[in-house]
C-alpha cells in the first residue's frame, strides 16, 4: 500500500527531475522544516527538503569542524557531491547553528541562482515574534518574487496554504489511525510517508494519501504489534533503524521529530491576512528544542502524544553533537520517567550500528514487559 511512498523516498532525485520536465518552475532546497514551503510553492517552484544519505563520506571535512552533528555534514555532502545538481535555489529558516553551516558552505561552494536566509525568531514565546516574523516572511516573499520575476498573489498563497494544510490534515489523520490497538501501518511506513512529503509536489502526495486512506482504515497488518514505542528527538529518517526496531517485536506508533509529526502537526488558520496566517502557523508549531524557551512547551506536547498513542516506552534519539536536543535530553528523560513512561536513550550518527543497538532495543522491550516476544 505504501509502495509509492517508498519509491518516492528512494528515487527523490528522479522525481524532482521529472517534475522539472513537466513544470515551468525550479526546485528550491529547504534546509529546515521551519522554511515556509507555502511561499515557495505559491511562486511556482517546488520546495524540497534536503536530507542526508546515511552513507559515510569524506568530502565535508574542509568545511565543517568535526564537533558538529553528522546530519549537517551528511546534508552538505549531498550538495558537494552534486546530488542536487538540478536545484536552483536554497533557503534556510533560522534554527540551529549546525545546519546553518551546511547552508553557508553550500552557498559558498555549490552554485545556486537563489539563496535566502530567513531570520526566523528563536524566541517564539513572545507576542512580538508574530509581527516580527510576518515582516521577515514578507521580505522572503519579495525576494522570491524578484528572483522569479513574478508576483505572488494572495490567492496563490492561499491556494498553496490550503494544499499544504490538506497534506498536514491527511497525514495527521493517518497518524491518528496508529492510536488503534493494532495500528494499520508500521512506523517505517509512517516515516517514509512523511519523509517523502518533503520531496514530492503536495498535489501528488495528497492524491496518494487520499488513495490509500479509505483502504488503510480497514487494513490489518500481518504482524503482531508488540511493544508500542514512541521515538522522540532530532532529525530522523533512518529507515534501517526503524526496520530493526520493528523487526524485534515492536511497533513505532508515534514520534516527535522535525522529520515526523512536528512537520505537519498544526495547520494554518485563515484569518484574512495570508502572510500573517502562515507566520502564525510556524510560530505556533510544536517547537524544536532550540525554540522552546523560556517555558518548556514541547514536554507536555510529547507527553500527550505518548498518552494518546498509549505507548509502552519512548526511545529518545539524537544526532551526535546535536546541542539543542542534548540540552533537552536530561530534563525530558526525567519528565517522561516521572510520568511513568520508560525511556531508552540512543545516539545516532550518519550510519547506525544496528547490531549493537538491536541488543539495547531488545533489552528495553524486555524491561517494558513485552513478554510475548520471548
Amino acid at each position, binding site marked *: 500500500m505504501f509502495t509509492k511512498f517508498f519509491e518516492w523516498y528512494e528515487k527523490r532525485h528522479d522525481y524532482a527531475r521529472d517534475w522539472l520536465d513537466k513544470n515551468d518552475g525550479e526546485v528550491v532546497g529547504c534546509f529546515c522544516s521551519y522554511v515556509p514551503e507555502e511561499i515557495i510553492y505559491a511562486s511556482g517552484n517546488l520546495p524540497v527538503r534536503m536530507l542526508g544519505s546515511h552513507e559515510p563520506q569524506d568530502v565535508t571535512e574542509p568545511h565543517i*569542524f568535526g564537533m558538529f552533528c553528522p546530519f549537517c555534514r551528511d546534508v552538505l555532502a549531498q550538495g558537494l557531491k552534486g546530488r542536487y545538481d538540478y536545484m536552483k535555489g536554497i533557503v534556510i529558516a533560522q534554527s540551529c547553528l549546525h545546519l*546553518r553551516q551546511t547552508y*553557508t*558552505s553550500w552557498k*559558498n561552494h555549490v552554485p545556486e541562482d537563489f539563496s535566502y536566509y530567513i531570520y526566523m525568531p528563536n*524566541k517564539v514565546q513572545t507576542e512580538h515574534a508574530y509581527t516580527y516574523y510576518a515582516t521577515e516572511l514578507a521580505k522572503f516573499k519579495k525576494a522570491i518574487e524578484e528572483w522569479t520575476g513574478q508576483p505572488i498573489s494572495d490567492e496563490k498563497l492561499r491556494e498553496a496554504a490550503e494544499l499544504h494544510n490538506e497534506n498536514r490534515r491527511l497525514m495527521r489523520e493517518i497518524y491518528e489511525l496508529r492510536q488503534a490497538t493494532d495500528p494499520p501501518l508500521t512506523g517505517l511506513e509512517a516515516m517514509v510517508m512523511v519523509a517523502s512529503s518533503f520531496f514530492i509536489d503536495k498535489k501528488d502526495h495528497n492524491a496518494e494519501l487520499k488513495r490509500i486512506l479509505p483502504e488503510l482504515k480497514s487494513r490489518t497488518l500481518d504482524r503482531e504489534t508488540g511493544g508500542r514505542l514512541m521515538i522522540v528527538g532530532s532529525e530522523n529518517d533512518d529507515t534501517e533503524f526503524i526496520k530493526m526496531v520493528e523487526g524485534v517485536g515492536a511497533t513505532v506508533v508515534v514520534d516527535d521529530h522535525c522529520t515526523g509529526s512536528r512537520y505537519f502537526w498544526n495547520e494554518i488558520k485563515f484569518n484574512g491576512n495570508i502572510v500573517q496566517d502562515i507566520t502564525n502557523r510556524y510560530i505556533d508549531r510544536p517547537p524544536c528544542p*532550540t525554540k522552546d524557551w523560556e517555558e518548556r512547551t514541547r514536554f507536555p506536547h510529547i507527553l500527550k502524544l505518548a498518552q494518546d498513542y498509549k505507548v509502552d516506552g519512548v526511545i529518545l534519539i539524537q544526532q551526535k553533537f546535536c546541542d*539543542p536536543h*542534548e540540552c533537552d535530553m536530561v530534563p525530558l528523560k526525567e519528565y517522561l520517567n516521572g510520568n511513568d513512561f520508560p525511556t531508552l536513550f540512543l545516539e545516532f550518527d550518519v550510519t547506525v550500528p544496528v547490531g549493537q543497538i538491536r541488543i539495547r532495543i531488545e533489552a528495553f522491550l524486555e524491561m517494558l514487559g513485552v513478554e510475548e516476544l520471548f
Partner: protein
Amino acid sequence: MNEYKTEPLKSWKKAKELRQKYYEDYQNAHAKGGIRWTGGAWSFDAIPAGLGNDVYNITGEPYGASIAFDKKLSMECLEAAEAKGWARDLCSYMRNYWGSMYLNKYAFGGEYPQPDFCFQDHICCSHAKWYQHVAEYKKIPYFCIDVSVGPYKDLDEDRLMFVVNQMHESIEWLEKVTGRKYQDELLIEAVKNEMRSTSVWAEICYLNMNKPAPLDEKTMYSLYVHGTLAKHNKEIADFYEELRDEVKYRVDNNIAAIPDEKCRLMSDTQPPWGFLKVFRYLEKFGAISVGSLYTFGLIGIWENKPDGTWGPRTTPMQKGENITTRDQALRLLADWNLCKPEWQHFYDPNLKTEMMLQIVKQWKLDGVMLHLNRGCEGLSCGIMENRLGIAEAGVPVMTFEGNMGDEREFDEKRTVTRIDSFMETLGYDMQEETAKTA
C-alpha cells in the same frame, strides 16, 4: 639581546582587584539587601541595572572560564554535570557552571550563591537553554531576549524593533519578579557606561597595531574579561579609560609586551583556559599573538572608518547625542550590541573571514592560529570555512584542536608540535638561548 624594553603593566593590580570585588559583591549581595542575578556575558546587563544600585550579576562564560583555569575544580564540575547525564560535547562553560551549581561550590570560595533570577540573551543553540536549566534547578524566574535577527549589515527597523520590544517586555518582567520600581535614569547611565567600556576596549585593541605591540593576547585575556563581567558598570568603564591611557603611554614610549617581537600572529575563539602557557611558548620564537577577533570583538564595539580601517565605534555621547528616555536608551543599546563583531559570523562565516583578514592587514600579522574549539559551537561555527578563506587569501594559517573549558580535549604536546611546524613554515627558529634549555 632584547630588541625592545618591557615593563609590567601598572593597571594589572587594579584589574585583579576589580575582578575580585566583582565576585565578592555577587557573593555578598544578599547580605547587603541587594539583588543577585545570573546570565550570560552577552546579556544586556545594563537593563537590570535600572532596578537599583544594589543589583549584582554573575556572568556564566567568564565564571566557567575561571573554573576551567582551576583544573581540579573544573574536573569535579564537569564530572558532576556528566553524572546528571549531560553530554560531554555540550558547551564546556555551561558544564563547568552547572557542575559548580550542583556541587554547591562557588569558584571563589564558599557555597554557590543562590541567584534571584536569570537574565540572558540567545544567539547560539546553548544560550537560552543554559539558563532554562538553571532557572528550573534553582526554581527562579527567567527571561531571555532573542537577538538572532541577522548580521548588522542587514539590520533594519523591524529587526531592531524585535529586540527593542523584547527589552521593553523584559523591564516589565523585571518589575514584576522583583517588586521594584524601574529607574530609567539608572538604565541610561548604565547604557552610557557600556558604550564607553566597549568602545574604549576597542581603542585599547586598536593601539595594539603598534609594533612592538604594547600588549600580548595572554595579558589581554585578563583585561578584556571585565567587559564580560559588567560592561555597564561605571568602575569598569573608568578602568578601561585608565588602561587605555597606560597602553597609549606604552606605545608612545615603545614599551613592548615581549622583548623580542619578530613575528606577529593572532588566534581565534576562546583559548584553552587551562593551557595559556601555549602563548608563552610562542615567545620562544619571538612570536606574539597580538589579539584575535575574539579578544577584540567579543566585547569591543567597532566601526568601519572613512579611510577603510577598522576602529573603535564612536559613541552617541561622542557624537553629542543626549540620551533622555527609556525607549531611546534601549534602541541605542540594541543597535550597539547587534553590531558586535563576534555576533556577525553566527550567520555567515564569510563575514568573519573578512574581519579576520582586515585584522591581518591592519595589525600587520604574519599568520593566524585557529583554535578548533570543541567547547563552543557558537564561536567555532563556520571555522573551517574561515580556514579556507584565510588560506585562499594567501595568509599562513594553522589549526589546533582543543576545548576552552574541558582539559580532557586538549593535547598540549600535539599543539606545541603544531606550533613548531607552523613557526618553521613561517621561517622562524626557536631563539638560540631558549633552544639550549628547551
